């Protein structure tokens, strides 16, 4: 009994809090993908690679060109936004009427391109911004400011996107576009423009994630592999296009990884998270927050 109670120590609390902070990071990553994949129903398998490019952008601006972080960040966001728009314009648009699997394949090709572009252009070295933010200590528990920052950004980003999507005309049009593309022009909507706006916005969110991730992670051409799959799972677990659900799902995933890692080996934490996803798909296929029909 004593042994059992032993697990309820300060470290458990720390793991829970760290899970929440990791959740912030994952939620931030899932935000843009949810917009693209969940709302306009376009598959960007290379989403995490856009984040990678953004991280390189930050690295070069801050480390190589010596720009202050706060100046570099908006530029990086715009850079990735432009990349997102470009991706849409060149790759997705010709495939809008093709089966989704073709989009998956084409953006998979882009994934290769971005990875090897990074290899060719930036080299295979691991790069690091070298900015170390202070640490927040409460008793024996310590928390990362950079994660706190990511958490806050994810929260604000989620709210901003949510209100944008529900309150504005453009947001409503973005939500409508996947439901009936042809009829949009009858509403006076220029579908190409909506797609470009959404792609740029999705890219900008990827850029935002990049700015905050670069504070915590090394950049290298393959950094996307750490985040890609799990981001997709989060979008689905939260319910496609459901921003609040996606936010929540990120935390659930992060908790499983964090607590699973605390009680067992780190690796089994991931097995658990994947298995949890599969089971949840059977129980709540429409997402965590969906009412059962």
């Amino acid at each position, binding site marked *: 009994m004593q042994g059992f109670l032993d697990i309820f120590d300060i470290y458990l609390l720390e793991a829970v809090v760290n899970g929440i902070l990791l959740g912030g990071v994952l939620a931030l990553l899932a935000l843009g993908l949810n917009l693209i994949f969940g709302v306009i129903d376009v598959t960007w398998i290379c989403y995490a690679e856009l984040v990678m490019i953004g991280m390189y952008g930050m690295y070069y601006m801050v480390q190589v060109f010596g720009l202050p972080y706060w100046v570099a960040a908006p530029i990086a966001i715009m850079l990735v936004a432009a990349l997102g728009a470009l991706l849409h314009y060149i790759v997705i648009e010709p495939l809008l009427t093709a089966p989704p*699997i073709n989009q998956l394949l084409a953006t998979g090709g882009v994934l290769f391109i971005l990875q090897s572009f990074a290899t060719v252009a930036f080299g295979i070295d691991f790069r690091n911004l070298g900015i170390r933010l202070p640490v927040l200590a409460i008793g024996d528990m310590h928390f990362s400011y950079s994660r706190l920052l990511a958490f806050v950004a994810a929260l604000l980003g989620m709210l901003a996107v949510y209100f944008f999507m529900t309150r504005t005309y453009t947001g409503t049009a973005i939500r409508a576009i996947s439901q009936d593309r042809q009829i949009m022009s009858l509403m006076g909507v220029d579908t190409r423009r909506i797609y470009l706006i959404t792609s740029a916005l999705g890219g900008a969110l990827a850029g935002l994630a990049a700015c905050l991730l670069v504070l915590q992670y090394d950049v290298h051409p393959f950094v996307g592999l750490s985040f890609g799959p799990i981001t997709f799972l989060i979008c689905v677990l939260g319910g496609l296009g459901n921003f609040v659900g996606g936010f929540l799902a990120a935390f659930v995933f992060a908790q499983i990884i964090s607590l699973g890692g605390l009680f067992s080996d780190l690796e089994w934490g991931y097995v658990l998270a994947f298995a949890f996803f599969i089971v949840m798909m059977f129980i709540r296929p429409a997402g965590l927050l969906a009412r059962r029909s």
Partner: protein
Amino acid sequence: MNFRNAAWATGLVGLVALPFVYREPYHLHILVLILIWSFAYTAWSIMGRFGLVSLGHGGFMGVGAYVTALLWNHLGVSPWIGIPVSMVAAGMLALVVAYPCFRFRITGHYFVLVTLALSGIVLQVITATRDYTGGSLGYTPNRAPSGKGLMALQFDDKTTWYLIALGIWVLGLLIWRWVDRSMSRYAMEAISEDEDAAAAAGVNVTAEKLKITLISALMTALAGALYCQYQMFISPDTVSGIAVSLQMVFAVIVGGLYVSLGPTVGAVITILLAEVLRIGFGTKAVGWDNLVYGLLLVIFIIFLPKGILGSILDRLKTQPKPSGMK
């Protein structure tokens, strides 16, 4: 005997004869790999062509390869028994995941991601149980004592492997054709368009989907086991996981999803392309091979959305057929 069958027969005879006249070992090696992967890709396409886009096939392949090798190394079970066992294991895994999917109508994106999680799990489990599987260091089947090669399904001779791979590849095509000509194809086409309407035509939707999934998973596991026996080495990254699953999707779509030789063409093109680009660029222009590879993938898919073979056949079909051919 019509023209098509004659062409097939000649082609096949030519392929069987090939290793006896052409003996460049490295090229044979690549050919064997192409044949084994073609078989795996064909297996994937049997599901994929009906809209069941699975990213779990890396998992099935991993199970096929690892179960066979583990049984041989730890229990001394011959692959002749081990392979069927591994196929059954992969089949059961497929059923366990697919049955609820089909029952609860998990389709489209959701199905893709559930199966993606599955291959993620298989990869992680192989890595985490490294005391048995060697983890990411990979795993090597024990060498059979000399003279026991047949029993252990281990051959040093490339020609033997070539013929085995060729046989399996033909088997894959035959299964593809069998499915294509069966009523199951109609049923699956119907299901992929509209499950309710298919059910209203009397189709047992869940059972038909499971059947196709099972066939596909069994074939994939067989491919994994053979890959292991041929390479005498497997590692989580080469036979399991999301990357392998994606590789299957790429090859099949590039080749052509709806034609029997599409996956084969896809295998030939993707494998040769990767080899040629890597060797071509060599160490002079590091990283460029994948850049070009990705670029070509994107171009293929934008300009030949039905895959290379599929698009070529389409084009031939719209042209008037020369007379005398049927």
